[in-house]
């Protein structure tokens, strides 16, 4: 009997005349297994993937959750005590590092995301209609996307160096005094947001361009016939039609931006700088683990961070469902 038996085949056999009445030969173990395998086909084929998810996603999450309820520190293998929700209380009442980190995470994500979507939409609209040399322009726009974030961080760090950096020399030529950029307490976060925008806008462009090219032309043409101008056509026709794609872009980029680590770490190092200027939740949790060896506290921060991400995703998917309707 073939493994690829369809369910139709099975029902045909089950309802065959005389089924169950004639004394059946006891099936061999091999037939037993294949019958069992046949019945549980959908589970069997999904099993490798499910085991994979279990081992690589569910277990680490559960382990982190467990660690967050202990006072584990120094070494994960060192004896640790179960302390219940103490870590969470410590973290949630920490106004020096935790809450500012939450604020920075959200403002970093919000500002970067808003700029990336608006810029990305603009660029996608420019690239929408064919023009001469569009291939080159597309390649140029995608370049930041293929660079390694750590290398990007290093590069901008050199460009923005307050003393020997290119940007300040350029500003000097047009008579603007040198700016502190990454080394300023107030300007560091803004500078890293700029880097994020520089690197990730192309991804948003790609997604939105894919959405634009799949739109049908008719509504746009009809509006043109009715004498709608370009703004009206964009705001009343293109944008509403594009909304599901925009939300996909916001979802993908938003989750990524929340988790940003490499650019921040490459430019400001551990702790997000001497005043924790760019310490987001991810950087904070990393420091708690690798610098302070406080695994319990770090895990609590990560679990809270995980909840923030899940919450944001849920809000966005709700929005997407509403728009799709």
């Amino acid at each position, binding site marked *: 009997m*073939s493994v690829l038996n369809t369910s139709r085949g099975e029902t045909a056999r089950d309802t065959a005349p005389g089924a169950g009445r004639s004394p059946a030969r006891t099936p061999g173990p091999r037939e037993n297994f294949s019958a069992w395998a046949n019945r549980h086909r959908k589970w069997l084929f999904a099993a*490798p993937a499910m085991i994979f998810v279990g081992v690589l996603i569910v277990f680490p999450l559960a382990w982190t959750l467990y660690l967050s309820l202990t006072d584990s520190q*120094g070494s994960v*293998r060192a004896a640790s005590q179960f302390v219940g929700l103490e870590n969470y209380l410590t973290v949630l009442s920490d106004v020096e590092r935790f809450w500012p980190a939450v604020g920075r995470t959200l403002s970093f994500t919000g500002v970067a995301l808003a700029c990336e979507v608006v810029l990305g939409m603009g660029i996608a609209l420019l690239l929408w209609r064919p023009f001469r040399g569009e291939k080159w322009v597309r390649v140029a726009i995608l370049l930041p996307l293929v660079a390694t974030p750590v290398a990007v961080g290093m590069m901008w760090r050199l460009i923005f160096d307050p003393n*020997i950096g290119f940007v300040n020399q350029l500003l000097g030529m047009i008579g603007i005094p040198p700016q502190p950029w990454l080394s300023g307490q107030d300007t560091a976060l803004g500078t890293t947001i700029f880097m994020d925008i520089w690197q990730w806008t192309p991804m948003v462009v790609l997604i939105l361009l894919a959405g634009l090219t799949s739109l049908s032309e008719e509504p746009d043409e009809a509006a043109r016939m009715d004498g709608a101008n370009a703004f009206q056509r964009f705001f009343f026709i293109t944008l509403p039609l594009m909304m599901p794609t925009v939300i996909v872009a916001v979802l993908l980029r938003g989750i990524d931006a929340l988790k940003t680590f490499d650019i921040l770490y490459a430019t400001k190092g551990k702790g997000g700088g001497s005043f924790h200027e760019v310490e987001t939740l991810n950087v904070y949790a990393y420091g708690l683990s690798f610098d302070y060896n406080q695994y319990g506290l770090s895990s609590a921060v990560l679990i809270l961070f995980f909840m923030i991400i899940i919450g944001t995703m849920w809000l966005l998917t709700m929005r997407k469902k509403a728009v799709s309707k």
Partner: protein
Amino acid sequence: MKRRSIVKYAAVAAALSLGLTACGGGSGSGDAKAAGTVRVTLANHVWTEGIKAAIPEFEKASGLKVELTQLGEDQLSDQYNVKLNAGSDEIDVMMYRPLQEGKAFAKNGYLADLTSKVSSDATWDWKDYQEGPVKATTVDGKVVGVPIITEREVLYYRKDLLQAAGVAVPKTMDELQAAAKKVSETTPDTAGFVARTGKSAAVTQFSSFLYSFGGDFTDASGKSAVGSDAAKKAYSFYGGLIKNYGPKNVSTDMSWPEAMAIFTQGKAAFYTEADSLYKNATDPAKSKVADKVGFAALPAGPAGSKPYNIPSWGLAVNQASGNQDNAWKFIQWATSKERTLEAQKAGVPGPRASVWADPAGTSTYPKDLAEAIAASAKVGVGHDRPEVVTVGKAREIVGAPIVATITGADSSAAADTAHDAFQKFLDSEKK
């Protein structure tokens, strides 16, 4: 028939493959022993370059095969944290920072006890090692590491700028301040003084200033001393030098690569830094002012000239390794008198007294640097950061007043805040 078994095997294979990859991460230590390999993890350093080139010699002489992993300082630290936490036996020999990770690693049981091994070989001669470095690689009476690189803080200066400004090489902190002031006033676009400014990175270089002003991170009874008058004077002096005579728009995240870059780009007259980094300033490939750099011992404060004299790196054996004898063979070779002399000639100050006594040991050093090193080694202090378990956190606490001073905040108030926080931290470590 055939198809059926395919499904069965596929299912079993899928389940097994996942299980196997989970345990297949490390080749067992038994294999390493049998194959006669020794797995060595080293940091990026001039010392490592020398050892790397000489490894074939060792392989030939010992019949062992060396598998080398080389990483940057921070990655190395993180790698150890991950691997040793998991009890991995994939590392046999590890290059580590005795003053940064030593206590924590020893407390977690990551480092093998080498006490009997170091005393077993008279020609290798453990007694040849300087006392300060040995103290740093000994935890609770057990030797857990062999020092390989030592460092002292010295003054780097620009001969041409001092001459132009008509100032002598400063012998005291007051003279240093006056000289920095004069140079920054007479030479446009050049800072009088530069040094590390990052909250955590600056702590080690600030420590020599702290000692020279008569302070320390903790007092004799192990209580915080960063709020003492001496410490406050040191904070305001070090931070003030950078704030008043440092580069314009100074970043508060500088570690040695950034500070060194400002000095080697010709943008500063004085720079205090570890002597083991001197090659960066005198190598024409790396430095615009290679031929104009002079060296001197750290200027004397109210308590004299008290630079740190510490072992910045050592070699240790991973406790979980099943290959400890081969690991020790590698360490014995890498730290022998001959290898130490070779490394020292290449610009890496070592921990062996006999090599320092040998004229060949300092033959390649600039003369003024060799003198500064000799003077510092006599009066040096054996630690350059708080001697605690969680050094990373302690450094952030005691480094905060440095950054506060540089940015023009109230230095004394910052020291008081740090004092309370540091005391709280020390109490929590005692628990």
